[in-house]
């Protein structure tokens, strides 16, 4: 019913993942990051350079003319797809704003998104062109999404961005592709958005869960070179299922033996005592957990209880980064000590990061629009809007100007450094070769001090292996 749908949980942490790519494209990744690296170095070093300048310059280094171009001939209305957009760009979106736990998890995304659009307008990022965004509510119910999208198309929306939820995006994907309307930054991690050939107008923002699980598998192999026994714990929905499926596929490669698998229903409000009891009985080396939203907290508590009951068992806990916000981990207290997770965005709640210019700017802006209370969880919305606007800027600079076709072309030939990304993180899409907004992940470990405050420490370097 009303609860945080799996994919939604990702938003809480605002982590944007990188898509898996074919391995033979690694050569590309060495060139692109260096540009971004220097740009980011500059930002960090001087502390003055606005990230927006970086966003402006980086795309220009990518040739827009060459590269993947969408075929507008098969559109229902090819002229509309190539018509120039003037005056105002109307952005539409559909998010769960009410109706239970999903709304709880995602409503801040709307706030962050709208805040960034206002920021972009205030700063005149698109010159004379103004941005207008309307976000409709579908209560995370896929029955209502087509209606919301249709209503916005009637109202003259030019592009869609940041629709939340896998079934929700699926429900409108055909309509938007048939009518050649860009469906950017689908906020779900389902692998379905990588289908460039059939659905060229739809792009995903969150990485398919396959990459995060691959990163963890690699880390586990490093921690346990002689092979590790892993128990899985996941929420029984699309999110959890795809996640562990990709983990299981990689198990052999990394010398991982999967000794147990426990599930929890998305609608179950009891703490997962029984599941953890089962896992504890197997005494695995590692627990790989993909719970949903608030279940993250009860999961961690149960594991802590079980560890106390079995003092000779010291498993490493790997937790999906959708749980990895200080908000959720903070509520777990000591139980969260020592867990592994990943990220590619800066934790805006961490006081150590408050001095960073992009963070300070973000927090100040959220405060000025009166949304400081949700600043921690609104980063996903902010970053999504930032990427959308960067795509628009690139499209505007292209020879065709700002048209729907040029926007999706820009989106698929795109390299960008998000302002709230960790140093070295870069979002990149490249036609059919790289259908996901790929970037790196760093594995981090969370430590809880005696006073209850938590800090993340990076383990190893930013992993860019999955970038193409």
């Amino acid at each position, binding site marked *: 019913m009303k609860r945080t749908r799996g994919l939604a949980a990702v938003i809480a942490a605002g982590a944007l993942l990188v898509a898996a790519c074919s391995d033979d494209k690694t050569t590309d990744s060495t060139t692109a990051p260096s540009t971004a690296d220097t740009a980011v170095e500059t930002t960090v070093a001087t502390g003055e350079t606005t990230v927006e300048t970086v966003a402006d310059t980086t795309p220009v280094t990518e040739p827009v003319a060459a590269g993947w171009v969408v075929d507008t001939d098969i559109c229902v209305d090819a002229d509309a797809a190539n018509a120039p957009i003037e005056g105002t760009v109307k952005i539409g979106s559909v998010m769960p704003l009410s109706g239970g736990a999903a709304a709880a998890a995602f409503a801040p995304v709307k706030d962050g998104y709208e805040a960034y659009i206002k920021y972009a307008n205030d700063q005149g990022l698109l010159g004379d062109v103004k941005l207008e965004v309307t976000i409709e509510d579908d209560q995370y119910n896929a029955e209502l999404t087509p209606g919301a999208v249709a209503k916005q198309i009637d109202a003259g929306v030019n592009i869609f961005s940041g629709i939340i939820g896998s079934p929700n995006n699926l429900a409108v994907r055909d309509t938007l592709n048939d009518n050649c309307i860009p469906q950017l930054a689908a906020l779900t991690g389902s692998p379905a958005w990588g289908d460039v050939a059939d659905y060229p107008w739809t792009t995903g923002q969150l990485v398919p869960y396959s990459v995060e699980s691959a990163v963890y598998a690699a880390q586990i192999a490093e921690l346990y070179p002689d092979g590790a026994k892993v128990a899985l714990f996941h929420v029984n929905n699309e999110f959890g299922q795809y996640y562990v499926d990709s983990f299981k596929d990689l198990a052999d490669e990394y010398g991982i033996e999967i000794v147990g698998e426990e599930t929890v229903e998305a609608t179950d*409000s009891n703490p997962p005592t029984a599941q953890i009891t089962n896992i504890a009985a197997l005494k695995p080396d590692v627990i790989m957990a993909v719970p949903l939203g*608030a279940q993250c907290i009860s999961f961690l508590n149960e594991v802590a209880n079980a560890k106390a009951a079995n003092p000779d068992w010291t498993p490493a806990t790997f937790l999906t980064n959708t749980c990895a916000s200080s908000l959720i981990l903070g509520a777990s207290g000591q139980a969260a000590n020592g867990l592994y997770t990943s990220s590619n965005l800066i934790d805006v709640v961490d006081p150590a990061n408050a001095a960073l210019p992009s963070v300070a700017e973000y927090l100040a802006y959220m405060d000025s629009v009166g949304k400081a209370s949700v600043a921690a*969880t609104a980063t996903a919305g902010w970053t999504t809007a930032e990427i959308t606007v960067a795509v628009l800027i690139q499209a505007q600079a292209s020879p065709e100007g700002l048209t729907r076709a040029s926007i999706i072309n820009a989106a698929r030939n795109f390299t960008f450094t998000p302002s709230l990304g960790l140093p070295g993180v870069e979002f990149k899409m490249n036609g059919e070769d790289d259908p996901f907004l790929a970037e790196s992940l760093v594995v981090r470990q969370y430590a809880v001090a005696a006073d209850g405050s938590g800090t993340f420490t990076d383990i190893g370097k930013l992993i860019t292996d999955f970038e193409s």
Partner: protein
Amino acid sequence: MALFFQRIVDGLSYGSVYALIALGLVIVYRGTGHLNFAQGEMALFCAYFVYQFGEWGIPIWPAMFLGMGVGFVVGSATEVTLIRPIAKRSPFAVFIVTIGLFTFLNWLDGAIWGNQQLPNSGVGSKQLKYPSLFPNDPQDQWLPFGVSIRYERVGILVLVLVLTGLLFLLFNKTKFGLSMRAVASNSESAKLTGIRTNRVLMMSWGLAAAIGALGGVVQAGLNGNVNLGLMFTVFIYGSAAATLGGFDSPGGAVIGGLMIGVIENLASGYLPKWVGQEMKLGVAFIVILAVLLAKPSGLFGTAKVERV
């Protein structure tokens, strides 16, 4: 073997919460003959209040008693304003009213406290997690023979048993309890003997809601947070417990609750493919169905004789 006992212990702790909800249902049924579909939501409403009391700095035990007080007020107010006038029309109308109340209370919780789980530092909660009535740090447990018995869960079980004992005393040893039984048995005659039936009815609902409040607080404490969906499935398990034990037997409700908790946990543990986590509700469903078909009055209830 240790795993078996562990599963029983875990099941008993889930079952204690079911028992509390079932107790509330049974008291309402005994007192007024209705099934209160809003029992779970009343419990949730009080659990939210206890969170709020905690935010205002009140420690958990006093907050819990205050929460029970809130429950009492909500329950009695419901009976006086909503149930009594409607009961004259038909049981169906009462049912609809309780369904309406169910929806309304859930909406109200969201309206007042929002739909995030609480406590939540994002909305500025002072508490880190929902307070538990008993110490529940990871090391707060006994470990006999490898079975983890947590203080918190034992505490809850003891609380339920103490409450049952108190209720037993109330029903059987006090004048008020006697009037409750009289009204339940034959309200017309009870009125004739001078018992203030209206007051008894009101107090039944109030008491039931107060016990439900305890259930809500305990469940939220076990879960670590309170959220809008907390009591949906608990309500069904509680109803299964009340059905199993017999809708007019408080003792039966408690035993039913504990049994359902244990059965559900053993089934899901030992039949991971057939029951697992997905079909735990299926167990409750089958229990309800089986009992209603085979022995509708439950294990300890009295059979109802209907005048045609």
